[in-house]
C-alpha cells in the first residue's frame, strides 16, 4: 500500500559557518588592540598577522596562549515572551608560535599553530529552534610553517603553508517522536583537512610609518567519512541506517588585510587593519550521505554569503620598560544576508572592544593578557529555509593570557 516517505523529516539541512565562526584571537598583544597589528612587527604572532613582518622581529621567541571564549547568545521567537539563552560553554581558542633565525641574518623561520575559525554553541535539546540546531562544536586548527625574509632594511616578505585540521560536531533534534514523546536526534561528527597559505609584505617607511598587505588563502576543508548518527524510534531505523557516513566540504574563506602602523611617540603606536573576508566562496552547503534512503536524501542548500569586512584600530603604549598597555576598537560587517541567519552563527554586524597588558618579568620572559569583547547587533530574522523566526542577540567575552620566552 502507501509508502510513507519520510524525506520531509530531513529536508531542512544543517547549517554551518558565518562570520560568527571567524575567531579573531591569534595573539594576546594584537587581541588587546582589537585584532589590529598586521603592520607591526610586535612579536611571533606576526606569523599569523603578517609573515612579512616576522623577519623584523629582533629576537627568537616561543610563545603560547589561550583565550577562553564565552559566546552568549539569546533568542526570542517572533511573538513570544520567552528568551532562550545558549548554555555557558567555554571554547578554548589557542595560539602557539615559534620564531627562529640566526642573529643579524636576513631571514627567519616560524611555526604557528592557531585557531582562526571555530564555534561552540549549545542551545540545549529543548529550545524552540531545536529542529534547526541544538549544538555545534567546530574547530579549525591551522598549522603554519613560515619563512620570512628581509628584502631590504625596510621591506620584509614572508609566506607560510597552512595545513588545517578541522573538527565538527553538529547536532539537532528530528521532528519524529518516540513512544514517550521525546524527539529524535541527529549528530553529524567528523574530522577533515584542508590546505592553504598565508603571505604578507611589511614595509617600514622613512617616517617609520609601517604598512602591511597580507593575504590568507581560502582553505577548503574536506570532511570525509564523517559519522552520521541518528537516534530515532526503532520503527524508523530502516530509514536511518546505523553506521552511516557523510562527506561535506567546509569552505573557510580567504582574507585580505591592509594594515598601517603609526608611531605616535617613542612609546605609543597606533595600528589600523582593514580586512576583507571573501565569504562569497560559501555559496552552498552539501551533505552527501554514504547510504541514502527515501527519508535520508543528500542535502544541498544555498548559502549565498556575501563578503564580509572588518575595521580595527588599536593602540600599544609602553607605560614603562616592563609594562605595556593596549586598547582597541573595531567594527565588522556580517557576510550573512537577510533570511540566512542561523542559530549556530546568529550573525550580524558587530562592535569590538578590547584591552590588554603585557609585562616583561625579565628580558627573556614576558606575560601578556587581554580582554576581548564583541557586541553582535540584535537581528530579527525569519530564516528562509528553516522558518526559524525571531530575534538573536549575542555578546562575546574572551579573556586571554600568553607566556613568551625570548632569546
Amino acid at each position: 500500500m502507501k509508502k510513507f516517505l519520510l524525506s520531509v523529516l530531513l529536508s531542512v539541512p544543517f547549517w554551518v559557518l558565518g562570520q560568527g565562526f571567524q575567531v579573531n584571537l591569534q595573539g594576546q598583544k594584537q587581541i588587546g588592540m582589537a585584532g589590529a597589528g598586521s603592520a607591526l612587527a610586535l612579536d611571533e604572532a606576526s606569523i599569523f598577522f603578517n609573515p612579512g613582518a616576522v623577519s623584523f622581529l629582533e629576537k627568537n621567541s616561543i610563545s603560547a596562549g589561550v583565550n577562553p571564549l564565552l559566546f552568549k547568545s539569546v533568542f526570542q521567537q517572533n511573538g513570544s515572551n520567552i528568551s532562550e539563552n545558549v548554555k555557558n560553554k567555554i571554547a578554548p581558542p589557542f595560539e602557539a608560535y615559534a620564531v627562529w633565525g640566526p642573529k643579524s641574518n636576513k631571514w627567519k623561520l616560524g611555526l604557528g599553530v592557531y585557531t582562526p575559525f571555530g564555534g561552540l554553541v549549545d542551545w540545549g535539546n529543548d529550545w524552540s529552534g531545536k529542529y534547526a540546531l541544538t549544538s555545534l562544536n567546530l574547530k579549525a586548527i591551522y598549522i603554519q610553517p613560515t619563512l620570512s625574509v628581509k628584502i631590504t632594511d625596510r621591506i620584509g616578505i614572508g609566506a607560510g603553508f597552512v595545513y588545517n585540521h578541522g573538527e565538527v560536531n553538529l547536532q539537532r533534534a528530528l521532528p519524529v517522536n518516540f513512544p514517550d514523546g521525546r524527539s529524535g536526534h541527529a549528530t553529524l561528527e567528523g574530522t577533515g583537512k584542508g590546505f592553504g597559505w598565508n603571505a604578507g609584505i611589511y614595509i617600514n617607511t622613512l617616517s617609520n610609518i609601517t604598512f602591511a598587505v597580507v593575504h590568507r588563502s581560502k582553505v577548503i576543508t574536506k570532511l570525509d567519512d564523517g559519522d552520521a548518527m541518528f537516534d530515532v524510534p526503532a520503527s524508523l531505523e530502516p530509514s536511518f541506517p546505523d553506521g552511516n557516513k557523510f562527506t561535506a566540504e567546509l569552505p573557510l574563506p580567504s582574507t585580505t588585510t591592509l594594515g598601517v602602523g603609526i608611531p605616535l611617540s617613542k612609546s605609543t603606536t597606533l595600528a589600523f587593519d582593514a580586512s576583507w573576508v571573501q565569504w562569497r566562496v560559501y555559496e552552498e552547503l552539501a551533505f552527501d550521505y554514504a547510504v541514502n534512503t527515501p527519508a535520508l536524501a543528500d542535502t544541498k542548500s544555498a548559502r549565498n554569503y556575501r563578503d564580509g569586512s572588518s575595521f580595527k584600530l588599536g593602540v600599544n603604549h609602553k607605560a614603562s620598560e616592563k609594562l605595556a598597555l593596549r586598547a582597541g576598537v573595531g567594527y565588522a560587517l556580517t557576510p550573512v544576508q537577510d533570511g540566512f541567519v542561523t542559530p549556530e552563527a546568529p550573525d550580524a554586524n558587530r562592535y569590538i572592544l578590547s584591552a590588554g597588558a603585557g609585562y616583561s618579568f625579565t628580558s627573556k620572559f614576558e606575560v601578556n593578557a587581554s580582554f576581548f569583547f564583541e557586541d553582535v547587533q540584535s537581528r530579527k530574522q525569519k530564516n528562509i529555509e528553516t522558518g526559524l523566526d525571531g530575534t538573536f542577540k549575542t555578546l562575546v567575552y574572551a579573556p586571554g593570557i600568553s607566556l613568551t620566552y625570548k632569546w
Partner: protein
Amino acid sequence: MVGEIYMKRYIINSLAIAAMFFAAACKPEIESTAATTAGQANFSKYISIGNSLTAGFADGGLYLEGQKVAYPNLIAAKMATVGGGSFTSPFFTDAQANGSGYLSLTALVNGTPTLTPVTTNLALRDATGKLTKFSGEVQNLGVPGMRLDLAFAAPFGAANPYLERLLTDAQVGTVSYFQFIQGRNHTFFSLWLGNNDALGYATNGGVTTDATNVLTDKSTFALLYSNLINLLTTNGQKGVVATIPDVTSIPYFNTVTVAALLNAAKAINPAAGAVYIQTGAGTVRAATAEDLIRLPFQSSGLFGVPNAAGLPYGLHPLNPIANNWVLDKDEVARVKDYVLSYNSTIKSLAESKSLAIADTYSYLNQVKTGIVIQGVSINSSFITGGAFSLDGVHLTPRGNAVIANVFIDAINNKYGSNIPVVDVSQYRGVKFPN
C-alpha cells in the same frame, strides 16, 4: 623593586577582575517590542465552543493527553500573560486517562502502519459506551461530534457520550448544546463549529444514514450560526471564530489514493487495469484521482478480496468499492461548495460583529502543500506530516500548537493584544513505535 611588585599585583588584580567579569558575564538581552496588553479585549474569562477539535480529540479518541494540548488550552495558557484567568476543561482523571480509548501506532513495516486500539484505563461508565461524568465548571466546551444543527437538538445530549458526560442526569435529552453553553459569564470566546456539518457527510462517503452525516442546508447553517453568534456576543463580548477547513485538506481523504490502490493491485496482478467504484449517483465506473477514498479502507481488509463469483473487490465493475467508502468527484464538489458557503456565512457574521477570524480554511490549505515552522516541516501527509493524528482528521499536539497560533495571530491582529505565541517545537507529532 617596589614598582615591580606593584605591577605584578596590578596584573594579578586585573586578571582577577577580568575573571570575575567573565564569570558574571552579562547576558545579552532582547528589548521587548511592546508591553504586554490585552488590547481592546478582555480575556479574564475565556470559553471555547466547538467540536472534537476544540475538545482535543485525537487518534480516534478523546483522552487526557489530547485534552491537555487542545488548542483552546494552549491559547488560554498564553492568555494568562495578558489578563487571562484560569481555564477549566473536563479532563479525564489520571486513573482513566485513556478516556474513550484511542489508536496507537504499534508497527510501521515498509511504510505500512499498524494501528492498535488502546483499551486500558478507559473512562467508560457502562458497556454502552457512556463515559464517566464530569461535573463542575467547564470553559473548554468542545464536544466531539457536535454539529451546528445538532447544537440546537436537545435529544442529542443523550446520543452523544461526550455531551452526555457533561450534563446532569436531568439535563440529558432535555438540554441542547446551545442551552448548555449559556450563562457562563464569559468575557471572551472562541467558536470553531460547523466542521461536522460537512465532514459527517464526507467521512461517511457522501451517504446520509442519520442526523450525524447529513449535509446541513446552507440557509439553515446561516440562521443557526447567527443565533449562536448572537448568544455569544449578548453582552458585547469579543471573540474569535474559525472557518471550516476544506475536507480534502485532511489525510483522511488523501492517503488511500486510487493510484496507490491500483499500484498495490498491480503488484499482485499486473493485469489489473482500474479501480472500480460505486458512485453516489449509483453508477459504477473506473475511479480517477478526483475520487477520494476514506482512510479506514486501508485496514478494512476488503480490497481485492474475491466475492462468491470470484471477482476481486474494487477491481471489477461487478464488484466495485461500495459508495460509502468513496467520496466521489461529484460528492467532493458538493462538499466543497457547502464548505465555501458555510465559510462565507461565518466570515460575514463575524465581520458584522467585529469578531476576529481565524481562517483555518486557508491555513490548512497551506499546510496541505507544506509549511516549515521553527525548523519543522509540517504537511497533511498521514503519520509523517506531523500535524494530523492517527485518525487522519484530528490534530496532533503539534497541529494543535500550530492552530493555536493561527487563533492567537487573529486575536492579536483584531484587538491589538499581544498574546504570546505558542512554541510549536514543544509539541509532538505522531509517536513512532520502537
